């Protein structure tokens, strides 16, 4: 008989289980859970509703920008750099989406609201290089993303914690 460190028999402080009943109980539990519904959020078809000022991809309006470079100064991960654009007297911000931590400080400090936060957070880029935008590219992709997000028809849901199912998703309008 196996001995534990206290010298007592190992079986003494273990609950006795009926081997046959325990197996039947385990299988019955499995079958019970088989009838439960999955609690997966079917993400690309269904999405959680974002709050109003959700900080996603930073969008840039070239026409409002005055080239003060405050955004580049405040940016904590240095995702924003100032570029010289041919045919433009002022320097303009460029954006490295791979470095961005979505803190939103640049949008707060921008004196003309040329920078703004958007609810877009799941844009996919195939290459690391394609995540680095110069000012003109940033302006173009911002417009594109905002338009695409407005067109998107995903079911919006709110997640609720439910004691019965675990997680429940309520549709919202």
């Amino acid at each position: 008989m196996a001995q534990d460190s206290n010298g007592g028999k190992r079986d003494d402080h273990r609950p006795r289980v009926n081997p046959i009943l325990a197996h039947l109980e385990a299988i019955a539990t499995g079958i019970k859970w088989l009838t439960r519904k999955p609690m997966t959020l079917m993400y690309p078809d269904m999405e959680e509703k974002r709050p109003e000022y959700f900080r996603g991809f930073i969008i840039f309006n070239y026409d409002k920008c005055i080239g003060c470079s405050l955004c580049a100064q405040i940016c904590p991960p240095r995702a924003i750099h100032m570029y010289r654009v041919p045919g433009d007297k002022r320097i303009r911000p460029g954006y490295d989406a791979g470095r961005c931590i979505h803190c939103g400080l640049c949008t707060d400090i921008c004196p003309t609201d040329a920078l703004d936060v958007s609810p877009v957070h799941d844009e996919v880029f195939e290459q690391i290089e394609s995540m680095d935008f110069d000012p003109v590219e940033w302006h173009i992709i911002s417009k594109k993303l905002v338009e695409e997000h407005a067109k998107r028809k995903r079911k919006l849901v709110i997640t609720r914690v439910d004691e019965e199912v675990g997680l429940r998703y309520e549709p919202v309008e």
Partner: protein
Amino acid sequence: MVELAKILHVPVWALRGFLAPLVYPGLVALLGTVLFLIWAERKMAARVQQRVGPYYVSPKLRGALQLIADGTRFALQEIIVHVETDRLMFILGPILTFTFLSLPFTVLPGGPGIYGFRSDFSMVIVYALLTLSPITVILMGWASSNKFAMIGGGREALLTVSGEITLALAMLSVAAMYGTLDFVTAVEKQMHTGIIGLVSNPIAALLFFLAMLLLTDRVPFDIVLGEQEIVQGPYTEYSGVLYALTMAIDYVKLYALSIAFTLLFLGGWAPFTTPLLGAISVYVKSLIVLLFSVFLRSVYGRMRLDHAMNFFWAKLFPLGFIALALGVFVHVIYA
């Protein structure tokens, strides 16, 4: 079947020898069953864990085409045979194993009158053909020249011995109970008396089922391909079509053994006597057995190697003799 032979102007034995191993219960039915079974296994395990399981391959069919997509991928994949392998055995291993395992369908009846050939020793033939496959699996483990494959082959050798002795005892007690070694006669005796083998000798049924789980690496006895310990056991080095074959091996064995389980313990084609309904009855019953045995994946964890060996030799082996004794006594009903 006899009418079909008359229409086609071929002898009945030739038609049987062609249809049984190739269509039902052989390869075509087998392919469909395996595709369904792996999908059902993944779906059930997902449901128990409140996940969704395979879905995006065909959302309307709940991901049922996932396995076909996987199969296509395997078929197009390059078969990598690395330098240190024993080339011939490495490539022949899965093919030989699969061939051995598709042989029992010549003699396993899939319904009244649906068999390749009828023999007085069909149980022995099926058992013998099924026990050929571990040899090639061990050889595959050796030929891969990989430590995981090597350990997997060793585990296969150990477990096969303990599993097959249990299976043999269960089959022997059934043979003593029905007084025959023929599947068809066994089913006819169950139909004649109206008492199925599961009721008259439940111990043998339990032993048969557990040995079936062990021999086909189902949870809780999936020790040979312990994914978290030894990547894929003896099949670690395989890729492409050969990997698909190695994956199929266990399911083929499971399918054959669950048909045998249906015939011996669940009364085979019990309520029906016509070939079509009888075949459907056998198929549905064995499908239920199959689904139950893959469902156990979501309930149990893996048993340790020594625990499994201890369980089979110290607990089930003596129980096998009790089953044999019970079978001898119960023989009175079926005599």
